[in-house]
């Protein structure tokens, strides 16, 4: 799915530049400007490394926590087909988390460190996963809107200056398209169903629309890291540009479904050739980021429980591997 952590406050380790580092930094920036990719062992400014570690790990955490709201429906999917699809999708999210942890590890942080940051609450993940999924229509809305917003955000990252992140993103984007289409298909089925199913679809859209717009992060005016991230080509478009693009392509899709976007201010603007939409409730966004969303506690609790309950498996597997090694050594 997606991270919005790009803009959340983090420790910026920009060192005071000595003449040496200034030369290295200039050379680094020249490489980035020339669209060269930066690879793991290359020299890079500490701020670049820290920004990437923060962004990639938050992105990975988002994928892993993102398995929870949808996983909620695996046992209750309405048909075997839907159930098989949902299992595959949730497994993909886990896989995306693994690609991303693997990319972040090339920057010198360990998997365990990242896991510790997630479980302690020090690391953030996308605010969207702190909303509940009370009905089956939510599975459709997540695929359509949340994965749709994710794709919008992630496609430019395929051209990110950091090689391992860009490569992970290419794999993810390829897989994400199935997620969005299966979500839209669920919405379409509901929208063409009974009046009650229609109501369910509309209700899901009502609840997910605004949180989906918040996924693009704070408005450009509030965004602290955008300028630097764009200079480093970690980011290619601003939050507001991507949000606008998302609204522009999604409104006609909602219209096709015969559903109404829950925004009384929404209108087409002929002059700019864009949809104009109403104000976003940033107070709600801040509350969810701070840990006070509807499901923050439940999500972290689920991750902690999984970590604790998996401990004996991790230890037993290591012990078994060690025993096998010793046996092989003795036999030799």
């Amino acid at each position: 799915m997606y991270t919005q952590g790009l803009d959340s406050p983090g420790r910026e380790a920009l060192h005071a530049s000595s003449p040496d580092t200034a030369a290295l930094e200039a050379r680094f920036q020249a490489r980035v400007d020339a669209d060269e990719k930066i690879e793991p062992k290359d020299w890079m400014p500490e701020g670049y490394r820290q920004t990437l570690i923060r962004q990639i790990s938050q992105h990975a955490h988002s994928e892993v926590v993102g398995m929870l709201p949808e996983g909620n429906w695996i046992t209750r999917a309405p048909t075997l087909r839907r159930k098989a699809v949902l299992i595959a999708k949730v497994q993909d999210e886990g896989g995306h988390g693994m690609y991303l942890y693997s990319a972040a590890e090339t920057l010198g942080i360990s998997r365990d460190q990242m896991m510790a940051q997630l479980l302690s609450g020090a690391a953030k993940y996308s605010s969207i996963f702190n909303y509940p999924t009370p009905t089956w229509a939510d599975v459709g809305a997540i695929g359509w809107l949340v994965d749709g917003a994710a794709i919008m955000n992630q496609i430019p990252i395929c051209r990110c200056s950091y090689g391992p992140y860009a490569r992970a993103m290419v794999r993810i984007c390829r897989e994400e398209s199935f997620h969005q289409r299966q979500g839209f298909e669920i919405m379409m089925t509901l929208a063409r169903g009974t009046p009650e199913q229609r109501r369910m679809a509309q209700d899901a859209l009502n609840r997910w629309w605004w949180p989906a717009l918040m996924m693009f992060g704070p408005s450009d005016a509030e965004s602290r890291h955008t300028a630097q991230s764009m200079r480093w080509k970690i980011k290619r478009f601003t939050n507001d540009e991507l949000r606008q693009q998302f609204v522009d392509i999604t409104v006609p899709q909602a219209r096709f479904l015969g559903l109404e976007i829950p925004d009384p201010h929404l209108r087409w603007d002929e002059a700019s050739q864009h949809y104009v939409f109403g104000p976003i409730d940033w107070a709600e966004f801040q509350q969810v980021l701070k840990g006070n969303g509807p499901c923050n506690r439940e999500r972290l609790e689920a991750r902690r429980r999984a970590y604790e309950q998996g401990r004996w498996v991790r230890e037993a597997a290591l012990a078994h591997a060690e025993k096998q090694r010793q046996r092989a050594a003795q036999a030799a």
Partner: protein
Amino acid sequence: MNEKEWPLFEVFVRSRSGLEHKHVGSVHAADARMAIEHARDVYTRRQEGVSIWVVRSSDITASDPAEADAFFEPARDKVYRHPTFYSIPDEVKNL
């Protein structure tokens, strides 16, 4: 969280017969056998491979990017290793 971390393995996948194995990423696993299974689940969910190699990341020795210029310098002035270095008249065929 001071337990021992599962070691890291680099993963190489052959996408189909006739092509070489290519690096795709890494996985953590208790041993090589498990690394192969994890690599299958993480990197070949859509039939992206017919063969997988894994190798402990700590067993890889890599050239130093900081010395790349000097290290690869010997090849730089040997343009005569390329066929285009030699000018042959157009009327000579099959060369």
